[in-house]
């Protein structure tokens, strides 16, 4: 049993922390939330320059590090409430291509992803946010060497920024994945305004013609890849939430030590102290349970149950932490100027993305049946 980081992980942590602290200030975050794409080419180039885009990819595809390194970096990104197509490109898409892609596809996409030259996203949900194969109704009809796609995808992360989109489509009884150039004719992208400022959109496919070469993995086997990437995605979200919660606690402690009421720093009052104690336990527990699953994923022994437990806990714990952070901050944390609400809103978005606590608890209960 070892809860410690190894040298490589510590190095990645320091690298990411220092970079983000210097470059991703509150001011940058506020600008990125307002930005259409949520990221600038400058930031992206720097991230690429530090090899952060190849995390968890093999060296032969320009990668470096493993899923644990990625988890460490995501926690640091959470700490600054990082916004940008990192999650969609690295966590979702690079993993899927690595898992499902042919050697040719890997060579085509992975090194360019690692170099920061292309952004890729995943288009999954259609009518619900249940993340089940049943929800996949977008039709892909074979026509000679091609497929014709018709349907609409919702909640697509970074829909506007992506150069390619991996589409989960219905092919008869199964689901098949396609990797599609976003500029293919017949594709329309509409972006949402979201509370959290995370960049999502819907993608409408109208008679979009795709070559059969652009199928990712086996025909009709797409959902098995999706299940695997959903586990990674959920743990990655957990890692981000751990960093976010940690930062919310830091802001809260700083404020509680400095703000005076009734002649004392408010952090001396027991109601505030007990809130902070609960926040700390929630955050520690969140980190332990996130890293347990991240480690298992890294070792190839990940299970549905571990991931469901982690996501159920972390997403609820993170809401509790944010709620307490606001309660301690009082009115000042309720203002748009303050940085806290960026974390609060994002925490909600991440809670629900890839299945919220309720969904995860149902999964756990089902595993006991």
């Amino acid at each position, binding site marked *: 049993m070892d809860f410690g980081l190894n040298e490589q992980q510590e190095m990645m942590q320091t690298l990411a922390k220092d970079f983000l602290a210097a470059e991703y200030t509150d001011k940058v975050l506020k600008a990125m939330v307002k930005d259409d794409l949520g990221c600038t080419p400058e930031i992206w180039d720097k991230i690429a320059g530090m090899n952060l885009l190849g995390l968890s990819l093999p060296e032969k595809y320009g990668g470096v590090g493993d899923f644990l390194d990625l988890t460490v970096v995501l926690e640091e990104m959470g700490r600054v409430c990082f916004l940008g197509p990192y999650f969609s490109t690295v966590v979702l898409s690079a993993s899927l291509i690595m898992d499902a892609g042919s050697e040719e596809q890997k060579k085509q996409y992975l090194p360019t992803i690692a170099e920061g030259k292309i952004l890729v996203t995943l288009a999954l949900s259609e009518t619900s946010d249940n993340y089940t194969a049943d929800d996949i109704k977008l039709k892909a009809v074979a026509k000679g060497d091609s497929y014709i796609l018709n349907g609409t995808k919702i909640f697509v992360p970074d829909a506007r920024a992506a150069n390619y989109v991996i589409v989960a489509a219905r092919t008869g009884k199964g689901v098949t994945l396609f990797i599609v150039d976003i500029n293919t004719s017949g594709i329309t992208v509409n972006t949402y305004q979201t509370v959290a400022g995370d960049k999502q959109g819907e993608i409408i496919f109208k008679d979009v013609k795709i070559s059969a070469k652009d199928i990712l993995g086996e025909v009709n086997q797409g959902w098995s890849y999706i299940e695997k990437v959903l586990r990674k995605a959920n743990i990655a979200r957990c890692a981000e939430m751990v960093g976010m919660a940690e930062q919310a606690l830091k802001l809260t402690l700083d404020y509680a030590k400095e703000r005076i009421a009734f002649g004392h720093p408010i952090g001396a009052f027991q109601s505030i102290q007990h809130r902070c104690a609960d926040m700390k336990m929630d955050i520690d527990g969140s980190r332990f349970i996130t890293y347990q699953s991240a480690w298992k994923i890294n070792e190839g022994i990940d299970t549905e149950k571990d991931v469901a437990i982690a996501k159920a806990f972390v997403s609820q714990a993170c809401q509790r932490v944010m709620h307490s952070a606001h309660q301690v901050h009082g009115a000042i944390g309720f203002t748009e100027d303050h940085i806290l609400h960026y974390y*609060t809103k994002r925490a909600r978005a991440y809670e629900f993305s890839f299945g919220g606590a309720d969904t995860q608890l149902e999964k756990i209960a089902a595993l006991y049946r």
Partner: protein
Amino acid sequence: MDFRFSLEEENFRQEVAVFLEKEGPKEWQKKKVSFFDMSGQENWIAIHREMSQKLGAKGWLSLHWPKEYGGQGLSPFYRLILREELAKYHCPGYHSLSVDFVAPAILLKGSDELKKRFLPGIASGEVMWCEGLSEPGHGSDLAAIESFAKQDGESYVVNGQKIWTTYAHFADWMFLLARTDRQAQPNYRGLTFFLVDMHTPGITVNPIINMAGHYDFNEVFFDDVRIPKENIVDSINRGWYVAMALLDFERTSDLGYAIAGTLLNDIVECARERDILDAQNQIRMAELVVECEVARLTHYHVTWMQAQGKGTTYEAAACKLLGFESIQHVAEFGLKVFKQFGLLSDKSSLAPLYGRISSCYLRSFGHSMEAGTSEIDRDVIAQRGLGLPRLR
């Protein structure tokens, strides 16, 4: 014991309902705008003012005032019925700060002259007030207020800053708690309660936008603002007692349970239309029905006490706490039900209730701070209500 409204009260409710259905803003009724979410609507101040004057014209903003001051001398349950119906019909126009905060304070502590000067404008819904209590360093700890009013002949000259001043950007008048004696021990004995014309030179209002993106709050700066001494409520250095009475009115003004109950109904209805109210959420809904019902009766009880002229100690704090927490819980329930759809702020067909879910949820973070933090409320219940000793 009687848990029924009187026939007259039921008739009044009916009259109000008919009026609001007809005269309330149609767009708001369609969108099911929630009370605390009003400022998220376009052009809302004009709509609010207009509706306020309509209510005033009906005599509904002074229902339970004594007849000599233009009121109808009715029980405070009439006010409660009116506000329940306003919540139900998603109607603005009830400017609590005027009707429920400053008016009762003036009625209780103001001179006859002040009553005659200020009550008619409130009753007609034409004059709107804001509240000058909190300061940057003193939110919960009002006794430590620093804004200073210095006597100068027949007037006082105020310098200082207020913050979290709801609606200062369109209010006509402010009630202001300022320090008039820096030596007073304990410090709350050096405060005075003033009524201030917001058009007086020297007042600067800066907006504070809240995390829901709405503009409710302001910073208000006072730079040699001159207030005639006849605008003092009660007398010099007695402002604390006026403010404390006012805070108890404030705590029972907004009907948390009614706002929560309406929002709950709207959520459930919309979720049923989308066929997404699963078994877990149905049980959670039942829990919220229970919570709102308890908050409702707690509010009725304190209203009954007020109607009886019984003194209250902790009851207003409990009433506010339960009512406002019920809004928070219902707003969270909205997110729990609609999940990612609830986090869409746009007007797309995917966003339930025209994006109100997220807006109400974000706005609800304020409910455990405004009108006293939940911590202060619980301190009050424990100390004033249960006689537990102070540590400090």
